[in-house]
């Protein structure tokens, strides 16, 4: 046990030391930047940062060897914590490392792993996610984008994806498309890997309420996926996509919470600065936010305590709803603490991040399962209550 503890201390020091030595000079301006709501910040420099991380061996730390670094869960947690503590920028490689990689590790062929994993590890290939469609949002399996098999074994894809984060900064996209005409829901779907820079793919940015354009619509009009780029075999796309959504077991969430803690510190600093800290109602809300953050931390630690179990635990079921609503409340608190200053567009580093927080946190309770879908899941899977009836059956 003591030995265990020592090796964890060692990793903690190693990460902290490495971050101090590398997140400086031209990378210094990336500190605390590029997170959710700020993903358009310096994309080229953040890709260089990914390559810097890769050279230090700090990409894909949780992937098993030989592909990744194979760190045990406790050490992965430490990496994410120390990365966030040092103000490490939002990872532009998030979808490749966090979603596609685990999907290929779970369901991909050896060839697919060999062709696609090294580019993610080295920080040279960036991925976008093609799941949602205009009519497949919460009802994700209602995918209408179709893929048609070609005589040479390749697939041609027709349709439209939406809310595709950073498609314009990505090289490849993983796409859910219907391979068997007439099928419904999760049946007959293919999980395809496609280069984004090819004829037949058009990317159109969507302007968000924050003013930013990190989401896109992606149009497919006969774009091609190679024969050996169907993951898990034709018709098994839903299984691959769902396996991937369950991959998250809280490993990176403690790092997320250190970012939240940094935001709460900014709110507290603003309240001290402008006198809002004297308002009894603001004091109550700041204390409540602090309590909520401790809840999230211990909830994540409970998730990690059960991380080896495959069953979805009660604490894991509530986690998305809990953190997203906590974060949204923090956004409103930030704006209320700022008062009229929240309403004026500014680049003031003490104000702008809180404005971003206020606006972008509105997305937290929508993406990756809306509040309403989360409550259905909690009621059905956590409490065993009856399933929602479908209107089209």
């Amino acid at each position, binding site marked *: 046990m003591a030995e265990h503890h020592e090796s964890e201390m060692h990793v903690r020091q190693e990460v902290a030391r490495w971050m101090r030595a590398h997140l400086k000079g031209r990378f210094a301006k990336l500190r605390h930047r590029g997170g959710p709501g700020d993903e358009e910040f310096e994309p080229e420099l953040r890709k260089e940062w990914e390559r810097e991380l890769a050279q230090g061996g700090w990409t894909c730390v949780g992937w098993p060897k030989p592909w990744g670094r194979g760190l045990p869960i406790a050490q992965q947690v430490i990496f994410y914590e120390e990365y966030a503590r040092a103000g490490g920028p939002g990872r532009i490689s998030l979808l490749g490392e966090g979603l596609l990689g685990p999907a290929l590790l779970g369901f991909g062929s050896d060839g697919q792993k060999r062709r696609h994993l090294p580019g993610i590890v080295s920080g040279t290939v960036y991925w976008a996610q093609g799941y949602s469609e205009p009519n497949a949002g919460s009802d994700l399996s209602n995918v209408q984008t179709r893929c048609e098999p070609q005589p040479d074994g390749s697939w041609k894809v027709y349709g439209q994806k939406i809310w595709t984060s950073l498609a314009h900064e990505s090289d490849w996209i993983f796409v859910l498309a219907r391979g068997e005409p007439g099928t419904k829901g999760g049946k007959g779907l293919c999980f395809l890997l496609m280069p984004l820079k090819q004829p037949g793919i058009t990317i159109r940015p969507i302007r968000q309420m924050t003013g930013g354009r990190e989401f896109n619509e992606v149009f497919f009009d006969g774009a091609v996926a190679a024969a050996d780029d169907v993951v898990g075999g034709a018709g098994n796309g839903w299984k691959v996509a769902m396996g991937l959504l369950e991959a998250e077991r809280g490993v990176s969430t403690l790092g997320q919470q250190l970012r939240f803690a940094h935001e709460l510190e900014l709110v507290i600093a603003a309240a001290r600065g402008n006198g809002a800290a004297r308002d009894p109602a603001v004091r109550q809300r700041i*204390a409540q936010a602090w309590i909520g953050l401790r809840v999230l931390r*211990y909830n994540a*630690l409970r998730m990690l305590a059960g991380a080896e179990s495959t069953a979805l635990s009660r*604490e894991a079921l509530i986690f998305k709803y809990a953190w997203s609503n906590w974060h949204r409340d923090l956004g409103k608190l930030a704006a209320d603490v700022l008062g009229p200053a929240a309403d004026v567009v500014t680049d003031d580093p003490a104000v702008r991040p809180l404005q971003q927080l206020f606006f972008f946190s509105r997305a937290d309770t929508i993406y990756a399962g809306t509040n309403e879908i989360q409550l259905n899941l909690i009621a059905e899977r956590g409490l065993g209550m009856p399933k929602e009836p479908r209107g089209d059956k």
Partner: protein
Amino acid sequence: MNLSLTDDQRMIRDAAASFLADASSAAAVRAAVERPEGYDPQLWTALAELGWCGVAIPESLGGLGLDATALVLILEQTGRHLACAPYFPTVALAANLLTHAGSAAARKKYLPPLARGELRATASFDAAGVRARKGTGASWRLDGRVAALPGAAQAQLLVFVARNGVFATAADAKGLSVRPQPAWDATRPVADVTLKGVPAERVDDPARKGAAGRAEALAQLCLAAEQLGGAQQCLDLVVRYTSERRQFGRPIASFQAVKHRCAQMMVKVESLRSLVYGAAASGDPLECAGAKALASETFFDCASEAIQLHGGVGFTWEFEPQLHFKRAQATSHALGTASALREQLAQALL
């Protein structure tokens, strides 16, 4: 920090859950509140025989020597089943205070009988309510008033935190008046205590600075654990009832208006559970205060929802929600209201 439960902790949690589900069933609770003692003496004896009165008392003083996590796991179940025994005042208030703030002599004198369940006790943390002045020799005199002290009429030993120390007195001491109050939450008897020159013994160790404050934080956490158990019970009652109750040809549990409310209860209950278990592991006094603040609101919300989602029967004496609703309100201000505790946190944060 690792929040996995140890084998000991898991064992005690499961034992408390199954024992109390039976020994403190709804019927047993309703019978117990009618008893002249104000509690179920058989249940109290059984809890003592299981060793749970001494769960967090050191082994050298006759306890089980387990940590705060084991204690909150038991209290979660006593709260869930509204156990009618002076367990909370004796263990969470008095034994906790003496364990953490007591002098060596006081610990040696009181903790072994407390651990065996031979001594029923309670403690007040209301330092503004009690004044202590030097009497003759080593003795002290207490004056003051403490309202609605849990278990005071059942206690043989009463312990008071005053500004200048911690003091203990026997229930039959001269000048001590204990007036039981007919509480709406009959499962947790309370009494008003008046002290007029009551002879008392100083029981704290002046060298342990801030120990009474740390004991109070732990008492807040203990109450939060009981409130957590109550909130969980409200959720379970609602899920069971709405799954059985049919209207419009289907179980009302199939309506999203009902499902989502239950899901929100579960979010609150699990959030609270995470904080209670985490604060038990860390022992951080601010987290304990935060847990009590969150628990008061969570329990009241869940008890309110339990009444509402039971519909008409939720308003009756016969069904269980009202018992938890009354407990939720009564515990909401014990050991600090949510807003007072949050202000305490704000002072530390701002």
